[in-house]
């Protein structure tokens, strides 16, 4: 597959969730003949089952597509990006491999929070943007209004804006040709030493780690000895090529190209996203800017429901880690739950995905404890500790101050909800910054909020207070001092370490009431009375009591039908399997996430 380098286009599609990005990508694949209609599964780029079900992209993909236009053959490299804030570092690295991006906006919804945050990432990467209004086939499409928003809020010109429908295919051809005519060819530098950006990697059981790369300078060939500039590790290239979307091996990837590379690498963490590949014997002088080590933002304890599944859980994490360099885990032991892992996630979605994969792909039922952010705890001796687990919190007397991570929001809502949003954010310890109108009726509200409040129940509250009309995104801001304390939960008089949380002192009472109430609802009655207490320091701030169970008996005789009695008992036994015995109290899995109570107070 040889192309004139000036006929290469590297681009991405960016959008708010559900604005039809994946369907649009599917249409592009179809029209360029990359896949036949018959092979077409919906949303081909989302290859994980979970992705297809949730309609989101988790892992990135890249495909090279051939397209004929005015007697020339073009190679269009479409680089898919995950659309969620948890993965914004990965998005920024993918965008760094591109020269342009298609910005998809839903013809009914208009601009939403992630439209903005993704657009800012693309503009930061200096990309040429093609704005396109999608879903124009919908009966309630409001093209004129969305056009106005694109012009007024984002400063696009009328003639720049394209219209299309991923569903009917209308406008797709024009869109592809706009990619060719508007997005510049990659900057070519054939003679400099090799510089290639890794923008994604995954583990293939036959090939080892597969890196998705964009070659900016020089070229990389089969059997070259490559070096990773951040880690200094070197490997010999065993295979390289492009995805069409099937793997198509080549002998060389040269400047401007996007493709994949394998080098018998077993460990994905030695091949990190954002790192720069060069040649060992002729290295580049400096690496491509923007590399960061991925840092988890949220930590949770994950414990096997059955304690004999610890080894199986460990193996599962090892396998997940092969494909997910952002995942970190280390052994944690809990008095209540035994041995498990403290696991770091990029965010709540990432956490959801991992726990769901554990149960679905590895069949290991797990207990997930309340997620925690990383606190900076300054001791009286000025030492600073990073605390990702409430149980590692030093005693109050040794603490000088605690700082917690803050974020800044984009909350886009119809202006009738301004009051509700403000009330919600105040309740979440928010600091109002400013607000701008996107059009006559929609605003973008900016608040500074502690990340721990987002981790708690902000999404659900936001959804319920705005009847689902709000879209939300955020950016990490930095650390700020806060009056934080550790709150313990006691069941039947015993502290259950897995239920401890760090809370703001002024909100501790309210949170304690909520947690004890929720626990009372989730823990079934036992043979004896079980008090539930929330405690800060040695002071009990909230208390509920689960009264003793009074009835669980098969009183009836059933005319000697013993088998029926036995079946009823076996059914109850199945229910018990979903419980964890803590001390002498049986606690269901979901009780450990009681703090994430989804109900309104």
């Amino acid at each position, binding site marked *: 597959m040889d192309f004139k380098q000036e006929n290469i286009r590297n681009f991405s599609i960016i959008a708010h969730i559900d604005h039809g990005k994946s369907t649009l990508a599917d249409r592009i694949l179809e029209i360029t003949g990359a896949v036949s209609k018959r092979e077409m599964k919906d949303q081909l780029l989302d290859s994980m089952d979970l992705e297809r079900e949730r309609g989101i992209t988790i892992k990135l993909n890249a495909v090279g597509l051939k397209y004929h236009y005015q007697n020339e053959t073009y190679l269009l490299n479409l680089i898919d990006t995950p659309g969620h804030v948890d993965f914004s570092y990965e998005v920024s690295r993918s965008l760094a491999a591109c020269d342009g991006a298609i910005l998809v906006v839903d013809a009914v919804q208009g601009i939403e929070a992630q439209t903005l945050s993704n657009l800012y990432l693309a503009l930061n990467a200096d990309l040429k943007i093609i704005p396109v209004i999608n879903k124009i086939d919908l009966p309630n499409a409001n093209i004129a209004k969305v056009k106005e928003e694109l012009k007024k809020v984002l400063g696009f010109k009328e003639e720049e804006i394209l219209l299309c429908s991923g569903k009917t295919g209308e406008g797709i051809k024009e869109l592809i040709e706009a990619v060719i005519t508007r997005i510049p060819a990659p900057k070519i530098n054939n003679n400099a030493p090799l510089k290639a950006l890794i923008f994604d990697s995954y583990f293939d059981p036959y090939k080892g780690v597969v890196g998705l790369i964009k070659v900016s300078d020089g070229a990389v060939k089969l059997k070259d000895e490559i070096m990773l500039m951040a880690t200094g590790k070197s490997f010999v290239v065993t295979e390289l090529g492009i995805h069409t979307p099937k793997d198509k091996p080549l002998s060389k990837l040269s400047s401007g190209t996007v493709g994949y590379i394998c080098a018998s690498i077993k460990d994905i963490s030695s091949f990190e996203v954002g790192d720069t590949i060069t040649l060992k014997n002729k290295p580049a002088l400096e690496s491509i800017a923007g590399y960061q080590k991925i840092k988890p933002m949220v930590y949770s304890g994950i414990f096997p429901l059955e304690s004999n599944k610890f080894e199986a859980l460990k193996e599962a994490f090892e396998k997940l880690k092969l494909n997910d360099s952002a995942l970190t885990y280390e052994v944690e032991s809990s008095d209540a739950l035994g041995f498990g892992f403290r696991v770091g996630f990029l965010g709540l979605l990432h956490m959801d995905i991992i726990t769901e994969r554990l149960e679905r792909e590895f069949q290991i039922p797990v207990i997930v404890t309340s997620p925690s952010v990383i606190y900076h705890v300054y001791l009286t001796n000025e030492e600073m500790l990073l605390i990702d687990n409430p149980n590692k919190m030093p005693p109050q007397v040794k603490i000088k101050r605690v700082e917690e991570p803050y974020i800044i929001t984009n909350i886009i809502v119809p202006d009738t909800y301004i009051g509700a949003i403000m009330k919600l954010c105040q309740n979440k310890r928010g600091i109002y910054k400013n607000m701008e109108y996107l059009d006559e009726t929609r605003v973008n509200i900016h608040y500074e909020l502690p990340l721990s409040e987002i981790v708690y129940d902000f999404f659900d509250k936001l959804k319920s207070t705005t009847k689902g009309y709000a879209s939300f995104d955020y950016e990490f801001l930095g650390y700020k001092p806060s009056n934080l304390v550790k709150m313990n939960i006691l069941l039947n008089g015993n502290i259950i370490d897995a239920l401890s949380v760090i809370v703001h002192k002024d909100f501790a009472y309210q949170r304690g009431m909520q947690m004890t109430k929720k626990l009372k609802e989730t823990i079934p009655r036992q*043979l004896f009375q079980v008090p539930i207490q929330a405690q800060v320091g040695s002071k009990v701030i909230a208390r509920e009591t689960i*009264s003793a*169970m*009074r*009835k*669980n*008996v*098969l*009183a*009836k*005789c059933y*005319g*000697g*039908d*013993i*088998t029926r*009695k*036995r079946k009823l*008992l076996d059914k*109850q*036994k199945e229910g*018990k399997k979903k419980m964890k015995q803590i001390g*002498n109290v049986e606690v269901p899995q979901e009780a450990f996430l009681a703090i994430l109570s989804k109900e309104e107070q």
Partner: protein
Amino acid sequence: MKGVYIHIPFCKSICSYCDFCKVFYDSKWAKQYLQRLNDEIDNYYMGEEIKSIYIGGGTPSCLSLESLEYLLNLTKKFAKMKNIEFTFECNLEDLNLNLLKLLKFYNVTRLSIGIQSFQPHLLNLMGRNHTFKDAKEKIALARSLGFNNINLDLMYGFYNETFDDLRKDLKLYLKLKPDHISAYSLQLEDHTLLKVNNIPSLLADDEAFMYEIIVDCLIRNGYNHYEVSNFAKKGKESVHNLTYWNNEEYYGFGLSASGYIDKVRYTNTKSFFSYLKGNYRLEEKILSKQEIMDNEIMLGLRKIKGINQKEFKEKYQIDLKEAYPITPLLKNKELKQKKEYIFIPEDKLYVMNEILLKMI
């Protein structure tokens, strides 16, 4: 020695709470049914000595005298033990001199009368209709003919039943001086009129309190509480029901009947027409030793006396305490021990499933 249960699936009216297998009474069908019953007994009964017969339903007493005589004649096939307990279930309305004489003639020793309650609003909800006066007269009649072992069923736990309603019922029951009382809480079963009409259930705590009222009242009045739901005057404990709780073997004949013979637990078809065609058995299961032992636990602990460790060892060649986690449960006071017997303490009987679940 084994027990025999015979199911008569006919009723003249259907009670709103009942999920047992039954059809409206029809004399032609009843005759055919009894013929098939005759065949089933001939096919399966192996000639063992029988220590109890229980004819239940449905409403066995709704059969015509002619059919009844046919049915009672069938029991002559069994090799009866000398002091056999022979129970016949009847409705108050059906009790009359002719019926009682017939039962007496065929050596029925025990009557079980499905009274359930005397409270008009509860009887109304159940779809039943009788008065205390009826009961008093009919029971006196039975006693005069020499029936000296009479069980009365008591049902409790209706959503519209008060504690006082129950206390009134107990008072009236005691006046009738029954030899045995079976007190069953209402279970809202699928395919019953109560369930179809979305009748609510009583709060579990209130039901448990009613159970306490019953146990307390009957014990005070000289009844032996010998099984979760059963109470008897001395020596009047039901031999037949104890067969179940002792995990002993018994035949079940008739539509939907269950039996336990030669380590096989079986249940008969619930389809009336299958039964008439002679397709008796619906399912059969050979039990493993573990399952038999588990049943021994599940059933044996229903008895207030509990399980005799020595007998358990003789039966299964393993110590009860070795086969099940008895010791920690004794420590928790969820089980108790008195001489050779391991039992569930009175105050935990109504939550006994929780304890069973820790054992099997």
